[in-house]
């Protein structure tokens, strides 16, 4: 039972990053854009973990991925709080309709 080739992990990470980038660029709803950012962060984590296999003593890649997960959780919490406040103010969460800072 041979382990999985790490090249495939890198390939999946690249594909996931590109899909996340497409979601961020194309979607109009702010929450879906946030989901795209989460997908991109996950792609980065896959890359970090794939390279961390070759460092079993210090696993620096996994540690960095752990901190990335924690910071992503904090980021999404703050972003959703701001989004709820924006929705209260403008009555919309569509990014194209948010053209002014104050209305």
């Amino acid at each position, binding site marked *: *039972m041979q382990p999985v080739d790490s090249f*495939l992990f890198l390939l999946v990470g690249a594909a996931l990053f590109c899909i996340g980038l497409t979601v961020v660029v194309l979607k109009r709803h702010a929450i879906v854009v946030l989901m795209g950012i989460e997908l991109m962060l996950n792609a980065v984590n896959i890359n970090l973990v794939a390279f961390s296999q070759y460092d079993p003593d210090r696993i620096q890649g996994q540690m960095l991925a752990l901190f990335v997960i924690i910071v992503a959780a904090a980021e999404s919490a703050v972003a959703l709080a701001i989004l709820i406040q924006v929705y209260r103010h403008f009555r919309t969460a569509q990014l194209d309709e948010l053209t002014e800072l104050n209305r």
Partner: protein
Amino acid sequence: MLQLAFYAFAALTLIGAFAVLVTRNVLYAAFFLLLALLGTAGLFVLASADFLAIAQIMIYVGGVLVLVIFGVMLTHKPDSPIDMSNQQPNRIPSSNRRGVGSSWIVGTLVAGSLFAALFIVLVRANFRLLSQPVGWKSAVNTIGMQLMTEYVVPFETVAILLLAALVGATYLASPLAKPTRHATR
């Protein structure tokens, strides 16, 4: 067997992410994001990151995704039950847009060319590291040791960051922090 599991989890991840891209419903997008995150957790297990997989499931699926679904429900317009217009493609590349279809083309072109560039780089790159043998080994003990020795300062810092971010998010989302024209606080 391991290869088969890898391909299954990779397909789960990519199909979930692609469904987030193509679906028109925000709530469906959240559920497809769940698929993608679970597939990523499986990939973590296959790359000998078992602790990270559990952390992924607990934090992302148990925390972030629930938060996202609450955000979907709180920003839902009650007067339009099925608002199909909210998933039209974005109009950000607006300088030379001709109709609705061209923005899809621009975004897909950007991401597709980025993927092509990454693919070429990955195929051509000759990582010497990737030719070394690798074995599956549980990472829980090592992560515990590392968190208390080498990474103790980032660990405490990120704890304070998380506390401050969650307190700030609670304050921001509360109705007390109503945005006013003239800031009185």
